[in-house]
């Protein structure tokens, strides 16, 4: 450095203009403290994970705008070569404080907002919410309305699982074709929803004490035709996918979730049952009229991604059984309790937690009433938010490409995760 030319006034003026990119001639002995943001996202190796002795970990931020993250979801991963050594989910990009909105509008006014939680399954969101309100106020639901709820919820489950399988194989590189087959069936369900509720996705159909309106003429026959065609479609879908070599290679033994961890981490829904834990709220809580319908709860053996795929296919077959019986037995009668008061509804003080088996897992609503027209506390227990807790545990040691598939098998919708 002794041969370096002395600093001139010219060089000084250039340095003064610098934005900080110029490297100083001499480095200070101690590195400057990291910026607060850098400290928050600092990657530390997880204890217990063997570090490789060559090279450094590569930190990659996947998302929030990436097609494989299913919405505005971000994963900060630390990679050793191609292997995931650490994975931190980052969310909040779609946060609009749904719970505050729920606390600032009336009990009735919250129903359309619940559509926007898991926007694939607006009808099950409606159901979980009205179930909590009915529990809070002790309302009864007419039999026909209960049947309509079961039919709507099972159609929603079929729709959700179809899309999930389509997106999952799409993530594995089956670009388009299986997804479009799934969307073709989804379209039929959306048409049914449209003629029933007036909206394809934001259905806003259930009310405390029943449903908003009765079936349009001829609806049952159209629904029956769809339900009758479902097994043939599933057979075709399974023939296409089940033994596909790429699907087997990409999913078997990948992202194994042990039943002990699944229970402890509050994982629910098809993900929990894929790990072999028999816990389906339709059987456990027997809400609605589910004790009238004989159906089985499919369980997985290994808890890997293939089991999570297969559980969804099998659940659609069980939903088909429920739908067939419900459409056959649908009784006549009112669809809403005539004494149910929707506007100016003020339940007595108290609290209630109601939960249902939504397609993604346990969807719960926790309401505290202080006797006013708005809930004092309105809380959503979103299944896909809680199911993401163990995403890191499932992905550690797998390749980055597998992490994408594992995330796809978790089944998240950001409208519900971020709320």
């Amino acid at each position, binding site marked *: 450095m002794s041969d370096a030319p002395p600093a001139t006034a010219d060089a000084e003026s250039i340095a003064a203009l610098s934005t900080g990119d110029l490297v100083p001639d001499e480095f200070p002995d101690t590195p400057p403290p990291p910026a607060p943001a850098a400290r*928050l996202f600092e990657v530390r190796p997880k204890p217990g994970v063997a570090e490789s002795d060559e090279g450094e970990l590569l930190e990659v931020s996947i998302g929030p705008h990436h097609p494989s993250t299913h919405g505005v979801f971000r994963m900060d991963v630390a990679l050793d070569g191609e292997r995931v050594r650490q994975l931190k989910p980052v969310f*909040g990009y779609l946060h609009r*404080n749904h719970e505050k909105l729920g606390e600032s509008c009336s009990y009735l006014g919250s129903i359309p907002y619940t559509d926007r939680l898991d926007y694939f399954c607006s009808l099950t969101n409606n159901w979980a919410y009205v179930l909590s309100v009915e529990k809070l106020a002790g309302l009864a639901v007419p039999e026909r309305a209960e049947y309509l709820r079961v039919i709507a919820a099972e159609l929603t489950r079929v729709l959700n699982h179809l899309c999930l399988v389509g997106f999952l194989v799409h993530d594995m590189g089956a670009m388009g074709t299986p997804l479009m087959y799934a969307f073709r069936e989804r379209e039929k369900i959306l048409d049914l929803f449209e003629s029933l509720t007036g909206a394809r996705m934001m259905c806003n159909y259930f009310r405390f004490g029943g449903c908003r309106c009765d079936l349009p003429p001829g609806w049952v026959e159209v629904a029956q035709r769809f339900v009758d065609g479902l097994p043939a479609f599933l057979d075709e879908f399974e023939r296409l996918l089940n033994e596909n070599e790429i699907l087997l290679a990409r999913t078997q033994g990948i992202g194994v979730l042990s039943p002990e961890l699944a229970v*402890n981490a509050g994982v629910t829904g098809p993900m929990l049952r894929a790990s072999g834990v028999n816990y389906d709220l339709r059987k456990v809580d027997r809400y609605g009229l589910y004790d009238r319908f004989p159906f089985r709860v499919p369980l997985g053996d290994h808890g890997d991604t293939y089991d999570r795929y297969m559980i969804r296919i099998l659940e659609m077959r069980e939903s088909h059984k429920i739908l067939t019986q419900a459409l056959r037995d649908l009784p006549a009668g009112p669809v809403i309790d005539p004494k149910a008061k929707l506007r100016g509804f003020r339940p007595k003080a*108290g*609290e209630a937690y109601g939960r249902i088996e939504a397609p993604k897992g346990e969807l719960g609503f926790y309401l505290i009433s202080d006797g006013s027209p708005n809930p004092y506390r309105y809380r959503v227990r979103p299944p896909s938010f809680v199911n993401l807790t163990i995403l890191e545990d499932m992905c550690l040691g797998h390749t980055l490409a597998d992490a994408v598939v594992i995330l796809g098998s978790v089944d998240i919708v950001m409208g519900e995760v971020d709320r």
Partner: protein
Amino acid sequence: METLEQIAARIAAAVPGVAASVETNPAVRAQSSLVVGRDHALAVARFLRDEPGLQFDYCSNVTGVDWLDATLKEKVRVKRVVDGAEQEFEETVERRRPGYLEAAYHLYSMALRHGPLILRQRTANRVEDTRLASLTPIWRSAEFQEREAFDLFGIVFTGHPDLRRILMWDGFADFPMRKDYVEPDDYEYEPTPHDAVLEKARRHYPVEGAA
């Protein structure tokens, strides 16, 4: 499942020094809660999970609740001597309740298929001391949900492995789910400014020199 009173008695026997009380829920009697002191919450949680007859292995829902300072009106029956005869009167008594933050945990048992048991812990006040015990070491499902309660309510869970904001961004200072949260009055763009918006803008950006 045993009644909540029986469970509270068993907790009192198993965890020395614990303050556990049952709070009745007037709307749904089966969903009454068990309030425990924060110093013993972790031990109580471990007992609830590991005790063979209870086995609350699944913590479904974790959330915060904000209770402001309030004046509660309670009706009490008092006996008074009127004209030499003792009579019962109903009187309204006002009681001041200092505000606090509360964390509620909805526990179920997947093994025995019972529940829910609602466990609550309460902070000392709403401002200075908002610490509670984290139950993430017992139930992993509380990890993100406690982070959310910290983010939106400002409850500090001691013993949480990774307590950061989760839904709001890291530079955010306030806690939006608190009842006394004031929304920011600035905004970026309003396509059709009208009276209320213009008034808000005038308050936020006062014109210098204007009367």
